[in-house]
């Protein structure tokens, strides 16, 4: 039997790869998503600021500017359709002296050119009235009401699960080692064997340059730019109601202070170009810098409430902008590379952009039975008590608490393991349910969750993996 | 021979210097009180320890056990290994004997938790 030839092979199961796969799964195309990790959302998509940016920051006319604003506008519908938490809480960019006002005005002008609505410069008093915990040093602020926060794991999972429900295949724990093109067909060599496809969509994050260079002439380099973060307990989450940015620099948007969709407070990121594409370590200096700089925009941050620190790698292209195009020479090879900030915000629009490129290569015929809705795991802690009581009656496992900090029950953890593309690692369960994400960081629930994973996979407890 | 040890009699943690001859303490210095002297003497002549560990039962559940009394310190690993290879059928109750006369120490190993 001849090996199956996919219409499209997506390399990388981050937010861009999953959003693209979901978009392509609307059409009568066979799609496969390949990732070297054992779960979706294991790279840049899992460790970032979790912000849906308004879009005032990027250079007008750039892909970043265009796709950010488009992506932002799609979020309300998507978050309902795909059942992931997104809150349009607004953002401030704060400055600390009169001299910096022109920079705020420049950002506002840029934002308006990019099509961002509602931008407004607030005086010191107005800003402090809206956000009483802003540092006393804050002189003025640019207010962007369309900025929002999202759960990047659930967003990525939602795209992936919906793509899966609509027929896309996922080949995880499968590292792409080489790509060749024979006639019109790409042959992708991977740790699990050969995969053939008519189109390859390169969404490989910090590895996008390596994947590109497997089959195309070198066109760009991707530098991992490390960002370190601190996450504070929910009791600190209310200190600000909006995302508080500082004035951006050439290295990024600076250290922000923001509530998260789970009610925590997030501080960061730093920005350091590094060599190693796997180096997600935190450093003493980095964390010290996050502390020092976050205090410039918000006062009285209770740093003793930190529950974890982590770092993520932005996939920063040497061209400065997103690179989303079909390769000039190797037709059918589509890059979605250099997707650094505002990549999460842009992902829904990047997916449409990729769809249009694919449409130039393959016929796009809409499926009759495409189902755009995806229902997430019901997280009982988010529900009103009556609804919760009702669900526990239906499934008593929802009454057995496993994670006490985030109030996640055995039933919810079982859901996260048993659903399609379900969790196979402790981190996978954590991203899907929030278990172990609270103040004790899994101290109490880890053994129980390990036991559930071990049972499902038929392996001894000692072989249950935290990640990868 | 001179041996140094820390007295565990109280939080003072006196650093004791013990002169040992023929496996017996002939002099103890550094102690603040009589407890230190006694401790050093017994540590030198016949140090013993309680051993606690678990036995994986027939149902795969670990059952905690202990030696009913302290065993010679130099036999700890023998005792642990002997306990590990013991078989235990559930259910068991606190005080049930899991291993008799472990490693010839004259001490039984007993269950420390009711387990079904």
């Amino acid at each position, binding site marked *: 039997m001849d090996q199956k030839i996919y219409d499209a092979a997506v390399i990388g199961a981050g937010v861009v790869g999953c959003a693209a796969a979901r978009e392509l799964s609307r059409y009568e195309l066979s799609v496969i998503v390949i990732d070297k990790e054992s779960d979706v959302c294991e790279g840049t998509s899992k460790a970032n600021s979790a912000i849906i940016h308004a879009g005032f920051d990027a250079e007008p006319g750039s892909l970043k500017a265009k796709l950010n604003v488009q992506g932002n506008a799609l979020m309300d519908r998507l978050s309902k359709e795909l059942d992931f938490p997104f809150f349009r809480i607004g953002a401030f960019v704060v400055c600390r002296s009169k001299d910096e006002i022109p920079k705020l005005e420049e950002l506002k002008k840029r934002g308006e050119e990019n099509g961002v609505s509602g931008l407004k410069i607030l005086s010191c008093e107005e800003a402090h009235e809206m956000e009483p915990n802003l540092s006393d040093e804050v002189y003025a602020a640019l207010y962007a009401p369309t900025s929002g926060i999202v759960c990047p794991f659930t967003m990525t999972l939602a795209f992936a699960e919906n793509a899966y429900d609509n027929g896309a295949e996922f080949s995880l724990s499968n590292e792409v080692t080489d790509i060749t093109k024979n006639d019109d067909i790409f042959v992708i060599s991977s740790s699990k064997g050969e995969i053939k496809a008519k189109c390859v969509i390169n969404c490989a994050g910090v590895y996008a340059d390596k994947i590109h260079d497997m089959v195309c002439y070198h066109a760009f380099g991707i530098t991992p730019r490390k960002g370190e973060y601190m*996450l504070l307990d929910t009791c600190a989450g209310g200190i600000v109601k909006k995302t508080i940015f500082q004035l951006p620099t050439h290295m990024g948007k600076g250290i922000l202070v923001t509530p998260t969709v789970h009610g925590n407070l997030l501080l960061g990121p730093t920005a350091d170009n590094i060599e190693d594409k*796997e*180096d*997600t*370590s*935190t450093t*003493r200096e980095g*964390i010290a810098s996050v502390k020092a700089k976050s205090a410039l925009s918000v006062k009285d941050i209770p740093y003793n409430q*930190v*529950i*974890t*620190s*982590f770092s993520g790698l932005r996939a920063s292209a040497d061209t400065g902008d997103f690179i989303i195009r079909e390769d000039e020479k190797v037709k059918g090879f589509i890059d979605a590379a250099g997707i650094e900030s505002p990549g999460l915000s842009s992902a829904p629009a990047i997916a449409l952009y990729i769809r249009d490129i694919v449409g130039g290569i393959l016929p796009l015929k809409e499926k009759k039975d495409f189902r755009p809705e995806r229902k997430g795991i019901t997280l009982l802690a988010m529900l009103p008590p009556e609804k*919760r*009581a009702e669900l526990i009656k239906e499934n*008593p496992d929802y*009454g*057995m*608490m496993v994670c*006490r*900090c985030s109030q996640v*029950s*055995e039933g919810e953890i079982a859901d996260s393991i048993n659903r399609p593309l379900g969790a196979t690692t402790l981190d996978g369960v954590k991203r899907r349910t929030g278990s172990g994400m609270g*103040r*004790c*960081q*899994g*101290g*109490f629930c*880890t*053994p129980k969750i*390990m*036991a559930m994973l071990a049972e499902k996979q038929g392996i*001894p*407890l*000692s072989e249950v*993996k935290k*990640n*990868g | 021979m001179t041996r140094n*040890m*820390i007295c*565990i009699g*109280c*939080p*003072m*943690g006196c650093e004791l210097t013990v002169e040992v001859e023929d496996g017996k303490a002939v002099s103890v210095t550094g102690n603040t009180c009589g407890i230190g002297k006694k401790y050093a003497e017994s540590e030198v002549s016949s140090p013993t*320890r*309680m051993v*606690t*560990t*678990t036995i994986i039962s027939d149902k795969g*559940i*670990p059952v*905690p056990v*202990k030696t009913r009394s302290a065993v010679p310190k130099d036999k700890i*690993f023998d005792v*642990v290994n002997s306990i590990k290879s013991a078989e235990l059928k559930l259910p068991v109750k*606190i005080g049930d004997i899991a291993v008799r006369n472990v490693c010839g120490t004259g001490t039984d190993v007993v269950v*420390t*938790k009711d387990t079904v």
Partner: protein
Amino acid sequence: MAEHISLAVIGGGPAGMAAAVSAYDSGITDVTIFERENELGGILNQCIHNGFGLHTFKEELTGPEYAGRYIDEVKRRNIRYETGSTVLSVSPDRQITVVSREKGMRIISADAIILSMGCRERPRGALNIPGMRPQGIYSAGTAQKLVNCEGCVIGKEVVILGSGDIGLIMARRMTLEGAHVKAVAELMPYSGGLKRNIVQCLDDYGIPLLLSHTVVDIKGKRRLEGVTVAEVDQSGTPIPGTEEYYECDTLLLSCGLIPENELSLSAGVKINGATNGPVVDDRLETSTDGIFACGNVLHVHDLVDFVSEESSRAGKNAADFIRSCGKTKNEPVIVRVTAGNGVRYTVPNTIDAANASGDIHLRFRVRNVYKGCTIKLISGGSVIYSKKKKIVVPGEMEDIIIKPEMLSSVSGELVAEIEEGAV
């Protein structure tokens, strides 16, 4: 309509069981213990080592045996207990929301509530240890549960950060399980653990204790590959050039315990910043009427025997509260108890001098190691209690008994302090 009971005890560990038994013996029999695990006993169930009960039972027991004694007491009295039941919230008017597999979600109102939820371990994140986040890093108690209750082999080459008692106990436990414990690093210049544990868990097995050291880097993408340990200066800052790399697949953290007071906060209970536990009076009643606290949720204890003793008092006091409908016999005369020189905190924070019927335990921990010192209680410039100590250490709880008659000359404030002096 909400269910109603006289006394709700939240947590079925040593504190909750002792409190329930004592309340029952004081005449309040309509008691329910709510326990989130599937059995009573709390953390004692995973503490399979011996050393418990010397004060309470005058013999040395293991954790499960100590718990077993109290479980027997609970059962003998037919005190109700619900395992697998998690309390989700407590309201200031003493309604608790409890959830379980068997009974679903319920709201239960109680005449009095005893908070006995225990504590949790300080996680890696709170320590801000730099480095990667691979598999193989556990808090010592989580590792203890995996090894002792699940029979799980967690690693072969081990480094332990923090010399709290659980870390020390786990150093021995891992060694007996065949692992090689390479070192225990402690940030402070002294260990927070008991001397006996340092000798019998480390020295016995030749495990080095590195005082004034900490972990400055963690290596390994998926599985832990090694940690870098460095010496720290007096401010706790790593000293460059002192780094040493330890290859290991497991890092255990034993860096302190934090009372678990999320439910207390939902009940409007005021928290003491020094203990992270509720502010209480001499009856162990919190700032919310009819809500009492005891055990490690109130302040982290060194010995379970003291947890049991304290919790018995909380149980009796809760019973008294229920019987007297919260009224005291005399007009209260509130004395504030504060931590003076060398004292980190006190429990209780206030004493009602007009209604003290029996001995009052004043418990505290010191800030540092003091040799040849005097513990003093001072009120209005006069010393009402004084005791010479050869040594006091932060790892051990001090306990002063105040007789009611000692309070006759006390007004306003009572300060507990350490007077340093040469031996």
